């Protein structure tokens, strides 16, 4: 049994590599995360699973007093981070891991066998009417009066237009065949440009290491046909991994469903170019129940490169101006 599992990986791992023989990236599905904050129970399994798989160091043992969040935000050694927001407004009933689990199972099609949670069909032998049967709580659904505790597992957004990628001068940061953004640790020389470029404050440079680090979307696992560690560990399918197109559809249905259940505030964040032109859409997008700022997300992020044309023009002008200054300065002196 064990050995089956083993060869399973070996075969897959091997087959993936033919892809890379030539410079061209093989045509692959664009993979990403859909993080549904309404399913998050703040267990931080994603944070630890990420550290375990990538074998990252701890980020210090500091008590923050920020609810149950002691890692504060993403950084060079923390690639998944769970935010905790104690809000003085209620949040009516939500919750649907099943969508996630099932979609999660379907998500990776051919690459699936190694590690995606299985679908769950507890009631296969039950009349389909079952959903209506139980009596949910009425409209008076409420947590501790006018209070709710929001949790969100944050991660690198793997933007369609990635600021870090476009800023990186060494070619250390690259776009992979899965559409993810990957920092090649063997190339990065720690210039720190990506750190200031990222509009989400995701990528960080560790002083003692000198290089920039961030979520790799488990590039190595993907090569072996495995699901990213965080998505695999997530007990409530709050983190769903899959082909971005499918995730988008699922996310939209989910919002419908939640609004129908009375979660009026449910909204997606960065699901596509239309809704986040600044990044042209995130490959790791979110379902939120409040303003982005509440979760420490920028309301209308933009990849600086999108705006940089202005600066280049200004520079051109500046070049001309400077030349003019020099010439006018020497003009008279040049006379014979």
């Amino acid at each position, binding site marked *: 049994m064990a050995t089956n599992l083993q060869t399973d990986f070996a075969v897959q791992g091997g087959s993936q590599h033919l892809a890379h023989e030539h410079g061209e990236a093989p045509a692959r599905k664009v993979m990403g995360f859909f993080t549904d904050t309404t399913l998050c129970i703040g267990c931080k399994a994603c944070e630890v699973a990420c550290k*375990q798989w990538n074998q990252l160091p701890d980020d210090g043992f500091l008590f923050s007093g920020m609810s149950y969040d002691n890692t504060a935000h993403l950084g060079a050694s923390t690639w998944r981070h769970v935010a905790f927001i104690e809000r003085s407004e209620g949040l009516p009933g939500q919750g649907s891991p099943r969508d996630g689990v099932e979609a999660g199972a379907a998500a990776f099609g051919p690459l699936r066998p190694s590690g995606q949670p*299985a679908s*769950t069909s507890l009631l296969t032998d039950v009349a389909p009417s079952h959903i209506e049967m139980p009596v949910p709580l009425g409209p008076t659904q409420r947590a501790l009066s006018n209070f709710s505790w929001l949790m969100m597992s944050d991660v690198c957004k793997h933007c369609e237009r990635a600021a870090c990628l476009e800023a990186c001068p060494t070619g250390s940061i690259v776009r992979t065949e899965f559409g993810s953004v990957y920092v090649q640790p063997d190339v990065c020389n720690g210039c720190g440009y990506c750190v200031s470029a990222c509009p989400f404050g995701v990528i960080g440079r560790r002083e003692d290491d000198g290089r920039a680090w961030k979520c790799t979307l488990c590039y*190595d696992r993907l*090569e072996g046909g495995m699901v990213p560690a965080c998505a695999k*560990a997530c007990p409530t399918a709050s983190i769903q991994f899959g082909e971005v197109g499918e995730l988008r559809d699922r996310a939209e249905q989910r919002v419908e469903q939640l609004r129908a259940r009375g979660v009026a505030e449910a909204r997606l964040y960065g699901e596509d170019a239309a809704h986040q032109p600044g990044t042209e859409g995130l490959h790791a997008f979110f379902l939120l129940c409040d303003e982005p700022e509440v979760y420490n997300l920028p309301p209308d992020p933009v990849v600086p490169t999108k705006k940089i044309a202005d600066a280049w023009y200004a520079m051109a002008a500046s070049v001309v101006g400077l030349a003019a200054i020099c010439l006018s300065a020497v003009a008279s002196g040049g006379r014979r």
Partner: protein
Amino acid sequence: MASKLPILSEWPVLRQLAHGDLTGLGPSAYSSRTRQLAPRTASADRVARSVCPYCAVGCGQLVYVKDEKIIDIEGDPESPVSQGCLCPKGAATFQLVTGDQREKKVLYRRPGASRWEELPLEQAMDMVAERVKRTREETWQERLEDPASALHGHRLARTLGIAHLGGATLDNEENYLLKKLYTALGIVQVENQARI
């Protein structure tokens, strides 16, 4: 470092020229390491089916071993209990079993001593066995000596001089052997976490 002075063939700019890649955002910027990338589990010699050692939910774990060392522990997707999921503790199991906090030597503290000293395993076992024997004999109760009790003179065949604590973190087989041995020794004060 190859990247310090790349051999020309490895120089991405040339690859960019070759593929007419003007931006160098994609594969032409890949390093050879990147092109070789694979999950470390693929290099494992074997995978052991295991169960999470923390709480009692019993999530399935897969333990990947390479060169007799553990390289990864993660959820078992085939488990109907956990379906590959783990909580943060379960996900940290790798650090639990491979961490440098683990002791690998028997430690001994003499009466009144202020530091540990190491002890050979065999010798330590002998010493413990010898102490069990001594204490058991010193504190043996063959019959109840309590005139006040209705059971005065009844058979006890036990010792209250030795006690045991722990078991909820152990295997069933281990609990069974412990109970069996203690009962045979007449040790009745055997308890575990189920009591708290």
